[in-house]
């Protein structure tokens, strides 16, 4: 196994996900579903590390990808104006993907995963909506919300199949990657609601967000490298993770 094999496995998973949610009209107006390769990597990590893997688990990984795609569609909806045909169909593509994940798992009789994923979606929504709440959250609260949004569903997938030993890697790495993105956005002046909220929280802590974000990134980086040093996962996976966080 090398980086090419890992990349091909991710591409294959992507293709499988696309196949399961293919819809002529939605494809025409909303394009292919948005998938995060870093998340897909962590869905496949137990397989790539040689854990027992079968058709059912692979199908389950596909459905987790579909749920991510579904929720990503709804992140694209404009806050004030969703009247264009593209926006209307984006609402529906999210709902359609959501129905498809349920349909696939229902066909397979995989009720435990339906339960875990639906619980996970509800928790994720509770965190996603926080940016619209009147609240005074600390920066750590925002880190937690970002982490839940990125990792909750993969965590649930791990729980169902006994892959919890990968959770620490997955949590640390996906949070780190997202915070790196947020830092870049901040530095480039790209605005978002979560950044605005984090700026407010940082101000309450009496420090600029850029500095605090960089400190958090450094802590997570050190932590992840510590995990990598002490972990027995395959070296190729360690290398891939290192590339992920340095790119």
């Amino acid at each position, binding site marked *: 196994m090398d980086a090419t094999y890992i990349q091909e496995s991710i591409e294959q998973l992507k293709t499988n996900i696309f196949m399961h949610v293919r819809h002529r009209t939605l494809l025409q107006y909303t394009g292919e579903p948005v998938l995060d390769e870093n998340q897909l990597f962590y869905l496949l990590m137990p397989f790539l590390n040689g854990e027992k893997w079968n058709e059912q688990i692979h199908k389950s990984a596909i459905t987790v990808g579909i749920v991510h795609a579904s929720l990503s569609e709804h992140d694209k909806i404009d*806050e004030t104006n969703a009247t264009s045909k593209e926006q209307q169909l984006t609402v529906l593509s999210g709902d359609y993907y959501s129905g498809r994940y349920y349909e696939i798992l229902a066909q397979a009789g995989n009720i435990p995963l339906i339960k875990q994923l639906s619980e996970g979606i509800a928790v994720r929504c509770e965190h996603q909506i926080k940016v*619209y709440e009147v609240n005074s959250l600390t920066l750590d609260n925002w880190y937690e919300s970002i982490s839940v949004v990125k990792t909750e569903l993969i965590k649930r997938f791990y729980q169902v199949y006994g892959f919890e030993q990968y959770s620490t890697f997955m949590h640390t790495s996906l949070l780190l990657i997202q915070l790196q993105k947020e830092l870049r956005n901040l530095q480039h002046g790209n605005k978002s609601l979560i950044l605005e909220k984090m700026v407010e929280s940082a101000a309450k802590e009496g420090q600029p967000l850029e500095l605090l974000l960089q400190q958090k990134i450094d802590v997570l980086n050190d932590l992840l490298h510590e995990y990598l040093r002490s972990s027995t996962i395959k070296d190729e996976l360690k290398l891939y993770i290192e590339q992920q966080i340095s790119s």
Partner: protein
Amino acid sequence: MEKMKLKLLYSDLKADIDIIEKELEIALNSSSQLINDASLHLLQAGGKRIRPVFVLISAKFGQYNIDQVKNIAVPLELIHSASLVHDDVIDDSDLRRGRHTVKAQWNNRVAMYTGDFIFARALEYVTSIENPRVHQILAKTMVEICNGEVIQIEDKFRSNQNIKDYFRRIKRKTALLIESSCELGAVVSGLDDKNVRHLKQFGYFVGMSYQIVDDILDFTATDKELGKPAGSDLLQGNITLPILLLKDHPTISKFIELAANGEVTEQQRLEMLSIVRKSDAIKQSINVSNHYLRKALKEVDALPNHPMKKKLRDIALFIGKRKF
């Protein structure tokens, strides 16, 4: 008023409907204050709870146990509610049942997350049922409803559509969820396949009639009764049965063009309403609705003798004849 009449019709189910209402509140309880507010806002807006009622009545034909039956009645109502929250974003609707929609009260994104949360809670709730058949029926219904909504958007302002297109659309938009409510109520109470089929078909026919009546009322009811301007369906490009029956009318076809360009004045809306109300299209649409009602009642006749047969008939007739 009509909602009160309906409540009277199923007054002997009140204890179980109250259980469903309580469970709806419990299911929507969230750690997020905003989701709680938005969900409560939605629950307080009420609704006829037709889907849970059909689940309960259908289940009465089998081994009725409210603790089991609620596990499908609650999710069906939640799925219906979640789809309304998202529909209001799609339709850019500020009012529903005379109240502000979630998207109007907060914003589109809050509506998306609230809807997703409610969908998720519906599925979480239904996982207390282990029978895969229940999940397969429900999942297929959810996907088909979505397909119906996609078709509805594709068909918006499309003047060359026909009545078959309309039936295909309303089947998915409304009839399927009512059909599934009846079918699933029967399945969870262990009814035999033949009678499950009769109840399923009953739900489908009633659902078709229900939507046709809804589409008629959009023209014949007042703005106040509707809680939104009469004729809103057409203003949004949804060409429903009364309009399909009138589409060769020069003023109506001109109106569709104007609506497509968002250029309808209040006077033109009132003129359109007047034409539709005075036309034969309303009467013809009522006839089509009645045709589906008769088919529904035939399915009731085929069911074994049971006190709930009368209830099914009464509710079907109420739905088909409602003035609002």
